[in-house]
């Protein structure tokens, strides 16, 4: 009897969470995905990426939680297809290039219109103010402000500062996300 119970428990525990990584092109989404896929990549080691035409989808395990992570390309031509992948999404990781002050406005627009989507109504939101290692990068507060996150209501969300290439800040963000998703159930 006990065996059966633990079987159900493990079954439940292993239900895959569906996560989307979104953001403009060059923000660091693919770098972040592959750091998660291969945690053995050391902090400070470099992950090389090429522009994503379409999407990458990978399974990521974090603290016994299984995530199915979709990294969608951020080029203008591909953004319209994001919506094809919204349904059944548990969380969105929105990545911002903190050093790209020119396009932070566009980044905000994309975020706003994405959050308006009905299919994403229940999704947890993590914003990563990435590329913090670059000099002249906006601070977390500046990014928070520029994206207009103050206006967010009824959304489980948190913003973190990260440097994907250096691997800094990602762990904290993932830990928060894992907790948020477990609590939500």
């Amino acid at each position, binding site marked *: 009897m006990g065996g059966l119970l633990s079987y159900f428990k493990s079954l439940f525990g292993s239900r895959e969470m569906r996560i989307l990584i979104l953001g403009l092109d060059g923000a660091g989404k693919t770098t972040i995905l592959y750091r998660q896929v291969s945690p053995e990549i050391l902090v400070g080691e470099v992950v090389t990426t090429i522009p994503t035409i379409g*999407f990458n*989808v990978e399974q990521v395990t974090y603290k016994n939680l299984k995530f199915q992570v979709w990294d969608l390309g951020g080029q203008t031509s591909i953004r319209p*297809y994001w919506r*094809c992948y919204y349904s059944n999404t548990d969380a969105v990781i929105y990545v911002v290039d903190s050093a790209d002050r020119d396009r932070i406005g566009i980044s905000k627009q994309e975020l706003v219109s994405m959050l308006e989507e009905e299919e994403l109504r229940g999704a947890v939101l993590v914003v990563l103010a990435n590329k913090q290692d670059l000099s002249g990068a906006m601070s977390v507060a500046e990014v928070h402000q520029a994206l207009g996150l103050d206006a967010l209501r009824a959304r489980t969300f948190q913003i973190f500062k990260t440097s994907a290439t250096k691997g800094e800040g990602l762990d904290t963000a993932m830990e928060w996300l894992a907790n948020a998703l477990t609590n939500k159930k």
Partner: protein
Amino acid sequence: MNSMKRDKKDEEEGGGGGLFSSLDKTTVLQEARLFNETPVNPRKCTQILTKILYLLMQGEELGTREATDTFFAMTKLFQSKDIVLRRMVYLGIKELSTVAEDVIIVTSSLTKDMTGKEDLYRAAAIRALCSITDSSMLQSIERYMKQAIVDKSPSVSSAGLVSSLHLMASSGEIIRRWVNEAQEAANSDNMLVQYHAIGLLYAVRKTDRLAVIKLVSKYTSLAVRSPFATCMLIRIACRLMEDDPDNDSTYQDFLESCLRHKSEMVIYEAAHAIVNLKRTGARELSPAVSVLQLFCSSPKATLRFAAVRTLNKVAMRQPTAVTACNLDLENLISDSNRSVATLAITTLLKTGAESSIDRLMKQIASFVSEISDEFKVVVVQAIRALCVKFPRKHGVLMTFLSSLLREEGGLDYKAAIADTLITIIEENPEAKETGLAHLCEFIEDCEHTALAVRILHLLGKEGPRTNKPSRYIRFIYNRVILENACVRAAAVSALARFGALVDELTTNILVLLCRCEMDSDDEVRDRAAYYRCILENQDRSLSSHFILNEFQEGEGEPREGMLMTEKKPSAVTKTRQETLAQQLLNIPALAALPLGQLFKSSMPTDLTESETEYVVQCIKHVFPQHVVLQFECRNTLPDQLLENVRISLEIPAGFELVSEIPCPRLEYNTPGNVYSCIRLPDDPQLAMEGTFEATMKFVVKDCDPNTGLPDSDYGYDDEYIVRNDPEVYFLFPLRFLEYFWFYLQLEEVEVATGDFLVKVIEGDFQSAWDGLGEENQVTETFELPYKSLEEAVTKIVKFLSLHPSERSDRVQAGKTTHTLYLSVASLRFLLTSFL
């Protein structure tokens, strides 16, 4: 409707289709929504994808919207790691890539799969990736394609090469940059990789002949391991040989070395190539035939088939080369494979001796009903060739053919039989009556209109000249009663010919034609009325012109106005001759001359090259004592005006220039005529040959291209440009102008025998000839410098400008004598040429 329902039910009961028997597009696409669910159910999704692919293979078409939706749903399946499902997804991508929009969405995922660790994905991912890639996207995957081409895994390398080959059409420029990689792959030990690599290299260089030559010489000397690649090299080498007939013997040596290859495929390819090369002579042929002979006794049916089929082809052109294989072919007659047996027999028919024919025909008869129409045609063609070769065998052969005619068969097959019978009849006078009898019997029950019409035509042509023409009337008239309008009309025309040619039958034919005038079809009635009207006149020349001629000019073209006129119909339409004569009479200077009746006007001949600035054509008008040369001149330069255009002629001895009429003004693009009237020599022998050297003389003025008026800048006191050489312009003061003519040398004008002969379209040569009487016939023997009979016939017809009668311009291949009937009416004498 009912029967359709029953069919469907039958199918269901048969239960053959199972899962896929009654798929419906809408339902299946509905099911495809399952792709969007997480977690993915690989087994179910694989099944749904299979259904979609099945529908597409059945020819079902998806709209852009449907395809795009399905495609995007399918992309969700990339989250599953199930290998079978992923490979199904690749297939789905390939199939939908042409219909769905924005298919590039899977580029990254496929690129990852093609470079990833899972070998089972890589080749298929490459193929899928290339199907969604256009030349703008190709650059971004170029690096991976190059890597794939030189990959260690043969399947990956082949996939890269073949996909590149497919992309050649749209992105040739990019693919050309991958030549180094392809060259590396061409050294592969793997047979397919090497084949695909050389294939790609050839595709890249195809348009550059020198590069292809290099390619072939490189890989032929390298002793390529892959038999596929060797076969391809054989084909490329053949193409090179055909393009350049006088190249050296390297390729020939290569082909012959391939005959000794260890792979049967290569040996056959080489033999086949040698046999089909135009340049192949007996020396080259014999080793090829030897290997084919060996294949004839191979235990593999495909090899036997290939060999005998190729030998069959050789036998058509060079039967003697195949005689050596007769024994092997004999063994194949009883081959369990009917196709092999048929080809063996027909080959033997072409190569064998007269004595073996009866036996072979019996053999064929035993299984002819079991083979397909296509092969039956092969049999018939073989028989046709036999009839030409052994005319004495026509009895056996015709009986066989007519038995074939009675059996089931399509139009092509029946037409081939009828054609063969017709050839026999035309070739072989002894066979005529039997042949016609067979054909009569056939049209009694012939479902092919076209064929029936042809046979009726033949009956009308040949029937009246047989011993007992009346026996055919019944068969022909039966058609009028029983068949469709087309056949009825043809039957009426055939009847009319009997009426015109056989006096005893005329009255009866008139009665029959009368009945035909009651027909429900316009064309049939018109023909009947038309022919009756002519026959009732009882005028030989009338019926010869309007019943018998018509058969040469084509069916069913009754002449204009024929039925209304009581006069001789020739006066009704104005001929080219009459128009030209009228034109000449309109020129006062010519009308004043005592020329008499125009006998013949030639076709225009060019005296200048077609590209020149001034174009001159000459028409020769022949009169009883004179020839009028009409030079039609055209000025193609908009900024020039020619004045005082004359043609000066060098008059040969015996001829005499009577009068010359210049053309005062030749404006741009408006033709103008210069006439020269020449009196012919009194000696008719001399009159038949005359060569006139011609020079065009004229004055040139520059003019305004818009108005055509001489340039005002060049007032009369100023200068004109006079051209003396097309390349050089001279300027001359006006006052000298009259003394400076421009001379243009023209081609010579020749007056020859042909100009004095008139083509007469004589329907029935024999009766016209007989009507001439002995005193008008002369027989002479000529030695002619022509290589073949065909050449001689065409040259003579052209030289004499005569009309060949009774289709006697067609020379039967392989004959040494030929009678050419030419109809002539001449002004001064009558000439008929026999050969």
